[in-house]
C-alpha cells in the first residue's frame, strides 16, 4: 500500500486533489481511498488530505502519519505546520514552488522535488489554481498513477472547457517534471 499526504490551504483544492488521485488510481485498476482532515472550513486555513492506493481492498481509516509521498501545495506552510512530519526516508516530497529543492529548508531525509505549478496554472488557466498541475507532476515523479487516468478524472470533475484546460495543465506539469 502507498500512502500520500497532501498539505495546502482552504480554497486551494487540497481535498479535490486527493479525490482526483484516488479516482485516477481506481481507474488504473487499483483500490484507493481519499479523505480530508478539515479544520474549520474557511479559506486560507491549513488543510490536510490523505490518499491510500493498494492492490487489495483498503480497510484502514486512520490518518496518515508516515506517508510514502508528500505533496505540498503551498510553500508558505513550511515552518507554519510540520509538513514533513513522518515522511518515509525512502519516500518523496513534492513541493509547489519556483525554488530549487536545496533552497527549501525542509527537514526530511526523503527526496525533495519541486515544480512551479502555480506558474503553469497561471499560463494555462489564467488563475493560480495549481492543484491539477501538481498532481500531473506527481504522476511523473512517482510513476504511481498514469497521467491518462488523472486527465480523465480531471475532465470528468470539471466538464467542458475548464476540464480541458485543467487536463492541459496536468500534461504540462507532467512533461516539465523529470521522471
Amino acid at each position, binding site marked *: 500500500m502507498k500512502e500520500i499526504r497532501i498539505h495546502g490551504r482552504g480554497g486551494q483544492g487540497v*481535498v479535490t486533489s*486527493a*479525490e482526483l488521485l*484516488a*479516482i485516477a488510481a*481506481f481507474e488504473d485498476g487499483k*483500490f*484507493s*481511498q*481519499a*479523505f*480530508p*482532515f*478539515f479544520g*474549520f*472550513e474557511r479559506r486560507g486555513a491549513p488543510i490536510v488530505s490523505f490518499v491510500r492506493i493498494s492492490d487489495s*481492498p*483498503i*480497510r*484502514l*481509516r*486512520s*490518518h496518515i*502519519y508516515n506517508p510514502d509521498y508528500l505533496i505540498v501545495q503551498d510553500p508558505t506552510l513550511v515552518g507554519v505546520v510540520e509538513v514533513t512530519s513522518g515522511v518515509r526516508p525512502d519516500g518523496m516530497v513534492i513541493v509547489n514552488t519556483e525554488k530549487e529543492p536545496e533552497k527549501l529548508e525542509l527537514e526530511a531525509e526523503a527526496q525533495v522535488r519541486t515544480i512551479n505549478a502555480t506558474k503553469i496554472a497561471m499560463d494555462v488557466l489564467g488563475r493560480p489554481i495549481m492543484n491539477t498541475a501538481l498532481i500531473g507532476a506527481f504522476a511523473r515523479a512517482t510513476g504511481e498513477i498514469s497521467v491518462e487516468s488523472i486527465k480523465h478524472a480531471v475532465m470528468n470533475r470539471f466538464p467542458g472547457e475548464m476540464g480541458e484546460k485543467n487536463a492541459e495543465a496536468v500534461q504540462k506539469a507532467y512533461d516539465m517534471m523529470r521522471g
Partner: protein
Amino acid sequence: MKIMEGSHAVAEAVKACRPHVISAYPITPQTHIVEEISRMVADGELACEYIRVESEHSAMSVCVGASATGARTYTATTSQGMALMHEVLFNAAGLRLPIVMTAVNRALSAPINIWDDQQDAISQRDTGWIQLHAEDSQEASDMIIQAYRIAEDHDVLLPVMIGMDGFILTHVYEPVELCPQEKVDEFLPLYEPTQYLTPKNPLTFGPIVDPSMYMEFRYMIHEAMGRAKKKIMNVASEFRDKFGRYYGGLIDTYEAEDAEVLILAMGSVIGTIKDAIDELRADGKKVGLVKVRCYRPFPAEAILEAAKDAKAIAVLDKNISLGHEGALYTDVKSVLYNKGPLALGFILGLGGRDITKSTIENIVAKAQKAIESGRVEEESEFVDLDQEVL
C-alpha cells in the same frame, strides 16, 4: 464498481428505494447526502417531494406527517440536529412509522466540534428507533435498502436510523458497488401501511392515552424491537442472496473463533481494527473482533455466544455516559454478568480523535495484562488523553 464519495453512495441507495417524501436540514458533515438528493430531485432523476424546512425538529415532523399518510420517507442529520430532533424521534417510534434516517455521527457541543464520534446516536438510544451502524461506505449505502425492509415489515413497524461516521465515511472516496434499480425493486416492494391518514377514512394518530393503556403501548414497541432482531438477520441474509454482499446479522465477527482477546466496537473503526488484528495474529496473538451492527435492539444473545469462550473482551466506545462509562461497555457487561470473560471499557475517538492501529494494539496489551493477572484494574478508561491539555 465505482469510486465515489460515501455521502453520494448513500444518496444513490436512497434514490433506488423510491422514497415519496424527503425532508432535511443541512448540517456538517451530513450536508453532502442531502445536497446530492436535492440535486437528484431538481434534475428530475428522483420523483419525490423534497421539503426544505427551517430546522431538524421540523424535518422529522414532516417525516412523521408524511409517513402517517403511507409515504416512504427519508431524512438525514447529525449532532446538534439529531439532538434537536430528539422529541420527535419518540413520536416517530410511538406512532410506529417506518421512517429511515442516516444518522451521520458527530460530537455534540460544547465545546463545538464538527468531527466524528457516536455520542449523538447513542443519546437517541431510548427513543424506540432501531439503530444500525455501518463499517464503510458500501454498508452505509446497502443498509438503506435493508432498513426499509426491516422498518416496513408489519411485524416491526419501527423507524430505523443508520449510524455513519462523519467525515470518516461521509467524505471518503472509495470503491462502492451500487444496487441496480430493478433488483432493488424486487427486493423492496412498495410500502403497504396497515393504517394511514386519508380523507376517505379519517383516523386519529397519536391521541392521548391514559394510565390504563400507556404501558401496553410501550410494551408493544418493546415487543416489536424484539421481533426486529430476527427480521434484521433475515434481511441481511436475503440481501446477500440478492446482491452478494453480507456484513453479518445483528453482529459480525472476525478471527473470533479461537480468540483469547476480543475487541468489540461499531462503526468505521472496524476496518482499522481488522488490520490491527491481522498484524497481531501474525505475531501469534489470538485476537478477534465482534462488530456490533445493530445497537438497538441490543444483540445480547449473539454477543454472549460470540464472547463466551474468550478470556477478555475490550469494549470500544466513541461515546460516554458522563459520570459512568461508555454505553456499549455497560450493555456488554450486563450481557456477560457472571458468565463471560473479563470486560474492559475504553473511551476513545471523541470529537474526531484519530484511532490508529497502535491505539488498538495498546488496548489489546491491556486486555492481555488483565488475563495474566486475572483481574481488571481499571474498568473504564480514556485512551490517548493529552495530559498537557488537562
